[in-house]
């Protein structure tokens, strides 16, 4: 009750002094115009210097460092001007290329007996069927009577696929003598231009 009456009395006092307060507000308003111009010029200068528009004051920086030291935090760890590198939400995609080549010798029929190379299209055992089945060979197991499968081979002379070119997987458009690691990605070929168009359409959505 007494506190309320005291506040009420102070309120009457403030109301009676309000003309002085009004005068102060008018003076502050005039000062505010000058302050606005000065601060605006400072802001523009900071902008063209490449700094923040309102950089921290020296005293604030010192206080910030002291508080962080008192909290046991290294200033570099939690510096607002030097934020840590953003952590990606998911790992970067990695492309794995699996290449399966069957090297056939010209003039050799793989189906003929005595062929030292296993048949690439030999049937595999079906699910539930016992292995081995008659008339079927496991191409990865050395059969009796067959020589070592990795016998004289000729190196593959064809073009090598560039693992860094998504448009040129196995297409013979580059010189095979150039190592594939340094080949420049090629422009989309006629065959896969449609894929690019589809991709761009999706990107516009």
């Amino acid at each position, binding site marked *: 009750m007494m506190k309320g009456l005291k*506040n*009420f*009395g*102070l*309120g*009457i*006092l*403030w*109301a*009676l002094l*309000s003309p002085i*307060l009004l005068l*102060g*507000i*008018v003076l*502050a*308003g005039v000062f*505010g115009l000058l*302050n*606005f111009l000065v*601060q*605006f010029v400072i802001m523009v200068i900071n902008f063209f210097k490449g700094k923040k528009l*309102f950089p921290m*004051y020296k*005293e*604030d920086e*010192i*206080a*910030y460092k*002291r*508080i962080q030291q*008192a909290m046991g935090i290294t200033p570099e760890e939690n510096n607002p001007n030097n934020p840590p590198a953003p952590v990606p939400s998911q790992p970067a995609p990695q492309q794995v290329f699996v290449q399966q080549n069957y090297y056939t010798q010209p003039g050799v029929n793989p189906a003929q007996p005595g062929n030292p190379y296993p048949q690439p299209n030999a049937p595999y055992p079906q699910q539930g069927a016992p292995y081995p089945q008659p008339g079927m060979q496991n191409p990865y197991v050395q059969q009796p009577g067959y020589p070592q499968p990795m016998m004289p081979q000729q190196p593959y002379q064809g073009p090598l696929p560039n693992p860094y070119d998504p448009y040129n997987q196995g297409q013979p458009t580059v010189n095979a003598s150039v190592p594939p690691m340094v080949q420049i990605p090629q422009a989309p070929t006629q065959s896969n231009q449609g894929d690019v168009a589809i991709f761009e359409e999706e990107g516009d959505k």
Partner: protein
Amino acid sequence: MIRLLASIQLNDTDKKALIILLILMVIALLFLGLLGMAIRAVMTHQAKRADNMMHDVTKSHVIDNPRAFRAFGRKKNNRAFYRDSLIPFAIAVFATLIWVIYNIATTKWTDNIFENCKDLFFDYDWVGTADDPVFVKVFGFSLLARWPDVTHYPEFNIEHLASYIIVFFYVASWLYYAYVCQAYLARAFMIYRRSTEVFHKSLEGYVANEPVDIKPENPTPPED
């Protein structure tokens, strides 16, 4: 004095008028008190930001004397004032832009937009006639003798719509700027007050000639 007051004879009409006058005075006092309380509460709320601005530098002892406290507080207060006044300035610039575009479109550069806004308010004849004046002179003071006649009732004129909008934005920006100025003053008062309070040192109860009671302790052995 008491006899003089006791000798005053009041009829019923005078008594009623006196009671009404007293009630009006009480209402005015109540209104004044509530208005002052509201102003004080608003300024106290606005001044809390000064504490927030100066807390870290004071608690970490970066600033350790009242003069530096006031100087740094003035710098931060000016910057806060600039930031706060961006909004009312933007509103005023927006209103000016509307005014320029409107005048380019209508070529009514000489129109007084504030005069046009008088359509929306009452207007009174504060002079009256020679036989029936609104104000009368009593002992050299001008007192209201009667309620003035209404000369204009509010009406909405569609031709002055742009003026209404522009004046609305201008008035809003001025009121907002007045509020920002009041906040600036409140923070300035608070910074000055804190500069005397925070670094206050008191010698209350201290006697320099008193023997100092220091208990001797064994010194700490040196570390290995």
